[in-house]
Each structure stands twice: as structure tokens, then as C-alpha cells.
């Protein structure tokens, strides 16, 4: 101990004349750092109420509550997160996991109150002073994601491998790929309501993750008896609303469904789905048409114990699935896998029998307790422009059916396809293959009214068509078919400006000054299909109520105004496999309600 030890501590007084470092008004003077994690704010216009924030919150601080003024619609649950500040720990995991990026934290941090009840609010809805604050915690930049935003790439046949064959193009996922893709799902369930069949999408994706294919198949068959088919050609409305799709690429829900179905061999279906023995209840139902709606209805009715008989006009099952979709997209053996299982449940099928011609509806009424008509849209619509009555002007559906049945069709050297839907792409790519086989080269122009981004066809279809040699020129309206010497020379088109008027009705506007001419010796029309209801006898038609737009009026359970007669599928809902399946399922339940007498609606006739 030296004298230094006694004197040196007095240096502690040296700061006595310095200006204090005190912040004068700490409550107002010191804003948090730009990245500070303060109170929540939410951009409710961007938010879709997916509830991922609720899932990740370890404190269960977030509730999803309905909010006035925000309607539930496809892709938006109408719910918004509500934060309980009696639970929150400001970890901002909810921000980092937010699928849309709408949820952020402001850097405000002062909230004082005497009542504990107030610490519960819906960010963005309840007006809080920090909602308009600029600074605060946002999702960090630089490869910081809690789930992959990139899809697992699906392997396709390369264009040169596929452009002259009808072999299936899409390879399907391997196990690792499927696991990785399934891992991207956040299990929000936004897709479930959007799927017409309300499939348990998050659940079966979880089954993929757990590598439990049998559970997956069971979940699929709860709502969809045609998983192989849907796994290939479904219009996947679910993917368009997928919450991951807001900032990245949506989860490949369709391919995962296909993956589950592919992994289960057909001979084990009965065992997995526990449908070895079905109790019969003795009632009989006739089903007209073996398309998705008909098969779906037959499947669920069989499970409920009804005896089903399907009347099919054509020599094979499947309807549009088989006859409207080319084999390279949907191989016939996969159709057979699904349909054979349904038929194995005890469904009778009578081929080559057209109701209305070979057997009348009245006869069906006598023989069966109920009739479900799912006859589909098989009649191609015509543009009705000048020259459509030429023999080399074809309907796409007719051509596709003939190709499937193995009949010879006319294939021109230069073909113009009118239409922008998936059917147009199907016929384009089918004809392209045929052209390549026949002539060694492809000369097809596909034109549509809609512009490229508004085309109803899947973009991958358009890209595929182009890869295979077809030329796709969207945004042109057909005016006239140029015919000289009884041969088609080509198609005159004008630029199409808009398709719909302000009221939303279909009313194309064209710029007639800007026109082009597509050369061709064969025209294929693919602008939609109509229904053929010739089997409805006059006596039935009298009692049948129609909607103002010319469709048959059915109730929620697809029961028409004639109680024993149910309609479903494309004739009610428009062309779509998954809608057909959903209709069939719902109609099956409707028929069950009707026949078992549990329906509210009393039988009147």
C-alpha cells in the first residue's frame, strides 16, 4: 500500500465539471435504432391471414380474428393476426416467417397503461400511432429465409426427346425431391378452401414429409378418388393462392399429390383404403357419363353402399380425361389405375350406350332410385366466322377424341389453331407431334384473343408448345378464313384490345387497322365447348328449371328441380377436372341425403 493508492482514487472527481451525458427527455428524445424490434404493425391489404405467424409464435400470442371490412375470398382468409401483448416477447419470428411480408415491427417501444386489458390489438386495423412509423424490424436481407422460396425443379423430357412421341413428359419427383418440396409448405391451409374438392392439402403434404404414403393416399381418397389423374392435369387453383407464392414460387402441390399416388401400387389400394368389403344398402343409382364427376359420384356412392351403374357413350371410361387430354400429359395406364380401382368397388359400367338413344331417361328412372347426369361438354363451339363450314376446319375436341380412339385424322402442312386455353395447347402439341411424325417439321400457329399474360392456358403449356416448335401468337381476334379454290389459304386476324366491357360481360374490342394474316391449310377451333342435352325428354325438360344463362338450375347438392335427377360436372361448373370431382362427391352426398330421407327437401313427385 503506497501513498499512490491513497491519492489516485481522487481522480474519480475529474468528471465533476464535465457536461453530464444524461438524455434530457428520454421518453421523447431517443428513438429506437432503425432495426429495433418494437410494436407490431401490419399491412392488412397485403396480409392474407395465412396464420403462419400464429404457428411460429412460441407464446401463442397471436390469434387470427375476423376483421370488419375484409372479406374472405380465395387466397385471403379474411382473418388478421391479433397480438396479445400479455404474451409477446418481441422476438420477431412472426415477421421473419410472414409469407407475404406484410407483418413488420415498428421501432416504437413505449406503451403504458393502467388496464391490462388494453394490451391486445390487431395491427393495421386498430389505429396505433406506430402503424405509420417508417423504421423498425423487417425481415433481414441476404439469403435469410425460414423456408425455401424456390421450387424443387421438376424434371421434364427435353423437347427433342418428347416432340415426336406421346410418352409422358413429366417425370415426377424422386423421394428426396418430394421431401424437399413438401418441406416448403407452411401448413397454412389457405389452399384448402380454394380447392373445389377441399382436399386436405396440408395434411397430405405432411404425409409426404413423414414419408407415410399410405396415410397420404387415405387423405387423398377422402376427397378425391382420382389422384393419379388430378396429380397430373389438375388446374391447381391451390397453387395460385399458395401463400408461399406471394414472395416466391408456390409449393408444387399437384406434383406432390401425384407423388403420393405414384408411390402406392394399385394392388395395395384396397388394403390401404380399407375398402375390401363394402356393405350394400340395396339402393341403385344410375350415372350418365364416366368422366370425373361420374366416377367420383360412383366412388363415394359405392362407399356409402349404393349400387352404381355408369352408362358410357364411348367404348372406354374417362370421358374428357381420356378423350380430351393427350397421352403425353396423362398416360392412359394412369387413368386406368384410378378408374380400375373405382370399378373394383363394385361399380357396373355399360359402354357404348348413349342415354337418349339406346336407353331413355324414363327407363333409367324406372330402374334406379336416382340418376346422376354428368355428361360433360363434348361439343366444340365454333367461332362462326366466315369459312368455318369448310371441311378442313375442325373442332379440337373431335380431333383429340379421334386421336385417343386411334382413328386416322387429317394433318395439314400448315395449321392455325384458334384458342388460348389448355385444350388449344393440347391440340397444338398433339398436332405438332403428328406433323413431326408425318412431315418431319412443325408449322403451327396458335392464336388467341387474350394477351399472353391473360391466357387461360398454363404458362408451362405455352412454353412447352413453343419448345416443341409451335408458334404461339396471342392477342389477335380471328376475322375471316381465307379460302381459295376450295382450299384454306389462311386466317385473317385483327388486334384484340380488350375482352370484357365495364360490366364484365364478354365483349371483345378490336383495332381493325392492325391486322395480320396467318397462312395455313387447316384450321382448328378450340374456343370452348358446349353441352349436348338431347337425352332430356320433353316431359323432363318441362319440369326442369334453367338459369337465365341457359344452364340447368341445381341446388347445393346438385339436385335439379326434379328430385331424382342430379346434374354435375362440366355441364354445371364448366370444364375442369377437379370441379367435376368435387361435384361428384357433393352430388353423392346429395343423393344419399335424398335417398336416405335425411334431406330437408321433401320428395314432391
Amino acid at each position, binding site marked *: 500500500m503506497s501513498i499512490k493508492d491513497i491519492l489516485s482514487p481522487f481522480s474519480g472527481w475529474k468528471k465533476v465539471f464535465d457536461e453530464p451525458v444524461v438524455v434530457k427527455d428520454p421518453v421523447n428524445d431517443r428513438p429506437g435504432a432503425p432495426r429495433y424490434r418494437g410494436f407490431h404493425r401490419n399491412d392488412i391489404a397485403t396480409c392474407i391471414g395465412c396464420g403462419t405467424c400464429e404457428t411460429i409464435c412460441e407464446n401463442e400470442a397471436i*390469434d387470427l*380474428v375476423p376483421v370488419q371490412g375484409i372479406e*374472405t375470398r*380465395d387466397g385471403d*382468409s379474411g382473418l388478421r393476426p391479433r397480438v396479445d401483448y400479455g404474451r409477446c416477447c418481441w422476438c420477431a419470428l412472426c415477421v421473419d416467417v410472414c409469407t407475404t411480408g406484410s407483418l413488420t415491427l415498428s421501432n416504437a417501444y413505449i406503451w403504458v397503461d393502467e388496464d391490462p386489458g388494453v394490451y*391486445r390489438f390487431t395491427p393495421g386495423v386498430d389505429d396505433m400511432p406506430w402503424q405509420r412509423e417508417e423504421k423498425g424490424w423487417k425481415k433481414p436481407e441476404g439469403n435469410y429465409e425460414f423456408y425455401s422460396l424456390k421450387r424443387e425443379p421438376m424434371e421434364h423430357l427435353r423437347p427433342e426427346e418428347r416432340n415426336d412421341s406421346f410418352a409422358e413428359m413429366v417425370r415426377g419427383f424422386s423421394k428426396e425431391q418430394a421431401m424437399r418440396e413438401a418441406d416448403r409448405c407452411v401448413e397454412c391451409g389457405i389452399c*384448402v*378452401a380454394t380447392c373445389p374438392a*377441399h382436399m386436405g392439402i396440408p395434411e397430405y403434404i405432411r404425409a409426404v414429409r413423414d414419408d407415410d404414403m399410405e396415410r397420404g393416399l387415405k387423405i387423398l381418397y377422402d376427397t378425391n378418388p382420382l389422384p393419379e389423374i388430378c396429380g397430373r392435369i389438375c388446374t391447381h387453383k391451390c397453387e395460385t393462392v399458395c401463400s408461399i407464392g406471394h414472395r416466391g414460387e408456390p409449393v408444387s402441390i399437384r406434383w406432390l399429390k401425384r407423388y403420393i399416388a405414384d408411390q402406392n401400387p394399385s394392388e395395395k389400394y384396397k388394403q390401404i383404403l380399407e375398402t375390401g368389403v363394402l356393405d350394400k344398402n340395396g339402393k341403385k343409382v344410375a350415372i350418365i357419363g364416366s368422366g370425373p364427376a361420374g366416377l367420383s359420384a360412383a366412388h363415394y356412392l359405392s362407399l356409402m353402399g349404393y349400387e352404381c351403374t355408369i352408362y358410357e357413350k364411348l367404348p372406354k371410361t374417362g370421358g374428357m380425361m381420356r378423350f380430351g387430354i393427350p397421352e403425353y400429359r396423362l398416360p392412359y395406364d394412369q387413368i386406368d389405375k384410378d378408374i380400375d380401382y373405382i370399378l373394383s368397388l363394385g361399380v357396373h359400367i355399360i359402354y357404348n350406350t348413349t342415354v337418349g338413344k339406346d336407353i331413355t331417361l324414363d327407363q333409367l328412372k324406372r330402374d334406379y332410385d336416382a340418376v346422376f347426369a354428368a355428361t360433360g361438354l363434348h361439343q366444340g363451339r365454333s367461332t362462326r366466322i366466315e369459312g368455318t363450314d369448310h371441311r378442313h376446319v375442325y373442332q379440337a375436341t373431335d380431333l383429340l377424341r379421334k386421336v385417343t380412339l386411334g382413328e386416322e385424322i387429317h394433318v395439314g402442312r400448315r395449321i392455325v389453331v384458334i384458342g388460348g386455353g389448355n385444350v388449344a395447347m393440347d391440340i397444338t402439341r398433339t398436332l405438332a407431334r403428328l406433323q413431326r411424325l408425318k412431315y418431319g417439321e412443325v408449322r403451327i400457329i396458335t392464336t388467341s384473343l387474350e394477351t399472353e399474360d391473360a391466357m387461360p392456358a398454363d404458362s408451362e403449356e405455352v412454353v412447352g408448345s413453343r419448345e416443341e416448335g409451335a408458334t404461339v401468337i396471342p392477342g389477335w381476334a380471328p376475322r375471316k378464313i381465307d379460302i381459295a379454290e376450295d382450299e384454306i389459304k389462311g386466317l385473317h386476324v385483327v388486334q384484340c384490345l380488350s375482352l370484357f366491357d365495364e360490366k364484365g360481360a364478354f365483349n371483345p374490342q378490336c383495332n381493325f387497322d392492325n391486322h395480320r394474316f396467318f397462312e395455313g391449310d387447316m384450321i382448328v377451333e378450340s374456343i370452348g365447348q358446349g353441352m349436348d342435352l338431347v337425352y332430356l325428354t320433353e316431359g323432363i325438360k318441362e319440369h326442369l328449371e334453367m338459369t337465365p344463362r341457359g344452364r340447368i338450375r341445381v341446388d347445393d347438392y346438385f339436385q335439379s328441380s326434379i328430385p331424382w335427377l342430379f346434374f354435375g360436372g362440366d355441364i354445371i361448373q364448366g370444364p375442369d377436372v377437379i370441379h367435376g370431382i368435387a361435384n361428384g362427391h357433393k352430388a353423392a352426398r346429395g343423393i344419399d341425403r335424398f335417398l336416405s330421407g335425411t334431406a330437408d327437401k321433401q320428395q314432391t313427385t
Partner: protein
Amino acid sequence: MEQLLDRIIAGFEAADIEKRKDGQVFFTVPKPKVLPLINHLKMFEGFRNLILMTAVDWIEDNQFQITYLLNNPDTKTDLGIRTFIGRDGEGMDSIHELWGHAATFQREMKEMFGIGFPGSPRVDEPFLLEGWDDIPPMRREFDTKKYSEETYFPRPGRETHDPATYMKQKLYPND
């Protein structure tokens, strides 16, 4: 390290060896061999530092895993010794005489898992809890959420909605 492991395998029936990184090995030995092994390691192999001692509840197999993590400060190696005992009141031998802080670990395990360590000082005194009259809380059959909700007055009036169900109800009320 490898030779040491060989000696342990040969002398103490070590099995189920898990080596994840350099200088750290976990292995299982049968219960009667644990104390001889620990004594041996402390006396002759230089493992004179007990890092931790804890239990893991494998309720599926109806047994507790007790882990002793020993450390050799000279060679910088860790040995994790696992042993399994039954969950139904089966005790374990105390090592409080080997290390001064082992008694604290044992006291906590007695309180949290209900594993008895006969002879360990103050082992029956409550350590972290006070007035606890339920089953030991770290046993997996104890449901902490249920206990909390029943005991501590959670805030009323909270409800949440599952987006999928809610959307189906809203968009397709008749389904």
C-alpha cells in the same frame, strides 16, 4: 482417445457409441458398471472434472437415461456416460463423494425427476420448487400447459380461427 475407448469397451461393457466431433464421445454402460467406470476415469485416466450430470426421460421405453459428462482438462476430451434406469422409483448410486457439486445435481434430479440418490447430502430438501405437491415436473407425463391453465388464471376472451376451416365456413357455408 481410440485406445481409451477400447479400454472402456473391454472393461466396462460400453456400447452404443456416438462420436459426433473430435474429443467428445457418448456411450452407454450398464448401471452396475457406472460407478466403477467413473472412479476409474477419475483416478487413472485424468477425467477429474464433472461437467454435468442430468437425466433424460424416455417415457416410451419406461426408463430414465442418466448422463454423466466427464472432462479431462489436459487432453481436452469429454466422455458422456449414459446409463438407463427404470422410471418406477429405481434409484441411482450417489457420487457426491467424488465431486463437491455432484450433490447439487442429484438434489435437482431428485426434485425434478424423482430419481433417488440415497446418501447424497440434503438430497431431500427442495431445491428450486417450494411447496410442490404434484408429480415431479420434468417427468414427461406431467403436462405443464394443463397445469398452468388450471392454476394460474389465463386471460379470458381469447379465440382464434384456423384459416382453412374458417375459409370453408365462410366461402362454402353449406358444405
